[in-house]
């Protein structure tokens, strides 16, 4: 890369970090939004959410490896769709088979999702091995676009755009449809929804499916971002998604979106301006500060 005048280089670095941070925040949002909705409506802390991501990513990767006859772009899009479908179906089945029979027993529900998280990642390792598998995306995604002197990898735009589309779509769904209304009301007071003659449990499978799709999207996008799919990624991204959810306030989509952006940016800036690896630590620090500053507000929302 040709040497740029110093101030300009600083500016371009800042832009690159910001866009990359937003891309990362986009992925956190995709995972955290489902977690937050599921917790808000059902009181279930879903440890298997990382498994949804893994299943979606491997679904897409597997489809891609089978669709060898198709050219790169349609193959990628088809594979991504397969991944999304796999994520949705898997999540809906988890709700139906494992969560529903334990209705109202929240601790058991959490425990079951813990067992599932362990079993799914072990199963993926058993079938496809511990190593990361290359995930082929259209070459355009690997190229860069210049913005004010900064060379931004194109996949960042796709991540950000996808998250914005998902946010807008989810918002429209929650505001404009009857099921959306039921979910918003159920997050506030589930018992009262049933006391209006509504079988709120029918919405449970729906939020799981939505969470599954969003996590699968994050799985496919993380496949593009890293160029691979990998059995451990679900868990490591899930931990940051948990942090995003706690900072944002459970059950609030807007809070989750804001918090995802903040966490993504803080992580990127700290990694670059302080020291590599410090980004992750500063996110934990951020969480500590938020909890110290307003534990009542947070725990009130969480109760």
């Amino acid at each position: 890369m040709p040497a740029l005048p110093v101030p300009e280089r600083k500016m371009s670095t800042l832009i690159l970090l910001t866009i990359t941070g937003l891309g990362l925040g986009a992925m956190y949002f995709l995972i955290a939004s489902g977690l937050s909705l599921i917790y808000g409506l059902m009181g279930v802390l879903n440890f298997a959410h990382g498994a949804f991501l893994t299943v979606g990513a491997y679904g897409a990767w597997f489809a891609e490896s089978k669709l060898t006859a198709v050219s790169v772009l349609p193959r990628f899009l088809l594979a991504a769709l397969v991944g999304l479908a796999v994520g949705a179906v898997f999540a809906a089945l988890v709700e139906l088979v494992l969560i529903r029979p334990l209705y109202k027993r929240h601790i058991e529900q959490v425990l079951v999702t813990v067992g599932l998280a362990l079993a799914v990642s072990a199963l993926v390792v058993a079938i496809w091995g511990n190593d990361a598998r290359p995930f082929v995306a259209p070459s355009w995604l690997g190229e860069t676009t210049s913005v004010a002197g900064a060379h931004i990898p194109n996949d960042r735009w796709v991540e950000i755009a996808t998250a914005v589309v998902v946010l807008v779509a989810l918002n429209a769904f929650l505001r404009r449809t009857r099921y959306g209304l039921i979910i918003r009301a159920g997050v506030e007071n589930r018992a009262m929804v049933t006391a209006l003659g509504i079988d709120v449990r029918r919405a449970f499978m729906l939020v799981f499916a939505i969470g599954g799709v969003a996590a699968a999207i994050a799985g496919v996008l993380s496949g593009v971002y890293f160029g691979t799919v990998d059995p451990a990624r679900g868990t490591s991204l899930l931990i940051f998604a948990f942090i995003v959810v706690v900072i944002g306030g459970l059950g609030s989509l807007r809070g989750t979106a804001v918090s995802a952006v903040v966490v993504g940016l803080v992580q990127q800036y700290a990694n670059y301006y302080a020291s590599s690896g410090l980004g992750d630590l500063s996110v934990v620090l951020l969480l500590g500060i938020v909890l110290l500053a307003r534990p009542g507000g947070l725990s009130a929302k969480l109760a």
Partner: protein
Amino acid sequence: MTAILSVSDLHVHLGESHILQGVSFDVPDGGVTALLGRNGVGKTTTLRALMGLVDRRGRVELAGESIQAAATYRIVQRGVGYVPEDRDVFAGLTVAENLRLAERDGEPRYELVYELFPELRQRAKQRAGTLSGGQQQMVAIARALLNENRVLLVDEPTKGLAPLLVTEVARVLERVSELTTVLLVEQNLGVVARVARDVVVLDTGRVVHIGPAKELLADTSMVNRMLGVA
């Protein structure tokens, strides 16, 4: 006169306490039956048990069909409306959304609701959480009136309201009772005297008195003994 709602030997345990210890009474079709008793004797729990919101044992029949094993939403779908204590409106939803959520099969009766509560029409787009207590009570009652019900369970609708609003709620209850049978939990004996035809009195989880409202309210010593108020 037939009973629209028939309760026999209803038991509820919450944790280690035996809250309802075999409650039995009938709600006759038409008019208002008031469920009375001192604080903590199990009035709210009785309504919640009828709605299936707490685990319960015993028999509950709605127009001759047993509903004690049904899920809450099915009980409501069979024609039991519920206006809970503390209103429980959805604070984050608008007034219109609160009402829309309550729509069930059949034609929602918006004309009736807006005739009784014209204010709700103007406040349709306002978040329910920003309404006053009286307005929230209107939303809670309106939600239940939107559908045709066989019986309406109303829990302390005048609690915490200013005197003027209490009169207003009493007027609404009178009007509602012309349309639907009402089982009303109420502490304000003025309201009871105005709207109730029959009374059921609970004490420590048991029914201790059933009879016409006028008879009970006329007997000061009985009122004093059973309700602890003059």
